């Protein structure tokens, strides 16, 4: 195989992968809507922060995809997921290695804060997506408390906001029933306060090294 074929195959693989990811997100979205949830933002966007500048070639390719949801009845909570394909910075990769996390994976997170979420606000959506992106693994200086139990990560931030996160192997999502079982149902349960439900239902979530506990 010469470079020409490598490039052609790589580009076709990326298109195919993006199409599959789009379908997975569509399945999640339609199920969440059927459960009475509404997405953050007013459109179907799921990528952010990629660059179109020739000076930022490293940021051209979208490698993470997120959507977040809430219901009108509990406006200080949100649930969301982020699909991580890889190609992260060495520092970010080290954080993931410490948790034994391998690409490609998803994190599914419950977010809670003291104020109401502004679901329709574009800036708020971006902030929520940023939060979902790093929830459970990024652990910057704003995280004040962190606990790992039963492969679930609990984090608390300055000001009292908190999140609860678990991880799923992207390549395990080959059936709609699996998406329903490991993403939709747990997301709804988490939102409704069923934090213990996740641990007690022995979901096939990714194991996390507990050594990161503090």
């Amino acid at each position, binding site marked *: 195989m010469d470079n020409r074929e490598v490039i052609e195959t790589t580009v076709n693989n990326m298109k195919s992968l993006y199409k599959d990811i789009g379908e997975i997100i569509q*399945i999640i979205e339609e*199920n969440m809507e059927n459960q009475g949830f509404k997405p953050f933002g007013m459109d179907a966007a799921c990528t952010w922060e990629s660059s179109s500048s020739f000076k930022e070639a490293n940021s051209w390719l979208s490698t993470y995809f997120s959507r977040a949801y809430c219901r009108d009845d509990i406006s200080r909570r949100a649930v969301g997921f982020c699909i991580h394909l890889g190609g992260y910075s060495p520092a970010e990769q080290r954080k993931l290695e410490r948790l034994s996390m391998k690409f490609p994976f998803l994190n599914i997170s419950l977010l809670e804060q003291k104020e109401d979420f502004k679901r329709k606000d574009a800036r708020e959506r971006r902030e929520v997506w940023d939060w979902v992106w790093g929830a459970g693994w990024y652990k910057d200086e704003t995280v004040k408390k962190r606990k790992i139990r039963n492969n679930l990560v609990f984090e608390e931030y300055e000001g009292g906001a908190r999140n609860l996160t678990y991880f799923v192997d992207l390549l395990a999502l080959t059936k709609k029933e699996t998406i329903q079982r490991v993403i939709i149902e747990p997301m709804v349960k988490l939102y409704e306060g069923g934090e213990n439900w996740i641990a007690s239902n022995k979901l096939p979530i990714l194991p996390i090294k507990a050594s990161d506990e503090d």
Partner: protein
Amino acid sequence: MLAAEIYGKMSGGNPAYERMEDILTSYVLSLFRYLNNLEIMEGFLRKARNIEGHNLTVANVKSGDVFFWPLLNFGGTNCREPDAFICLEEENGKKLAVAVEAKYHSGLSNILGKSEASGKEEAEKLLEKEGESLVEFRHQLADEYCGLKCGKWTFRKVYSKYDPQIFQAKAERKYLLYITSHHEFPKGDIMEAIEATRDRKGCERALGNCGVNASNEIYWVGWRDLYAVIEEKGMLQVPSKACMDYTASEQCLIADLAEVLRIRGLKTFDPFRDLKPVQLVSNIIDDHFLFDGLKPVGLYESIIQI
């Protein structure tokens, strides 16, 4: 497959996304007209579900036909144009009529006064903005359902052994079928249609149980379900036992349709199958500074099998 052109749906006056939708509708539903054996189309209809989770009951279809883009008039809904009207006759002589509203990329064309609204949320926003004095929210599926039950239909004359007016007036069972690209049952659209039927204002013929009937008689099926039926019948393998029931030209028609569905991203959910391994790089020009970061990749497997 000629219907879209015959009915003038390919003209440049229509937006591209509408043409895509009309052509797909014409490709798929024409099979009711072109196939001698309607088993695949029966299977497709049987995949349809209503809000109660019940599948559409259809069995032993003797023959059928489809009439595209009829016009219907029901109260203030004279502008409605469902995508198709399917006439089916069962072995026992019973008649079944199915009005079809098909979508590909676009959403429903709901109407609020003189404005179009794609959903109830948008309609409510318009209502807030423009005031309560506007006429009520008119839901496309509700209009077509009411039209199916009590409306006046106009069909274009085409070669057929069936008279759709007879089916419209006398069919034992009548259903509205909503076909979309969704993976999951579009609960919001269907619920809104049922509520709009129940709450229809100024309808002299409205029965007390219109809303209840609508929840039983409005069905949804995905384009992907047709691909699944074709796949389940083994029609994508050559040779297949199922192919024995179809002529060579029918097999080609079905295989081509499956390919169109695949190209349009409407095949059964089956991710990560199309990824190709990338082999080691051997460059024809050794002295280069670009592309030296490319790495070989093999097919990967899931860590956890669920």
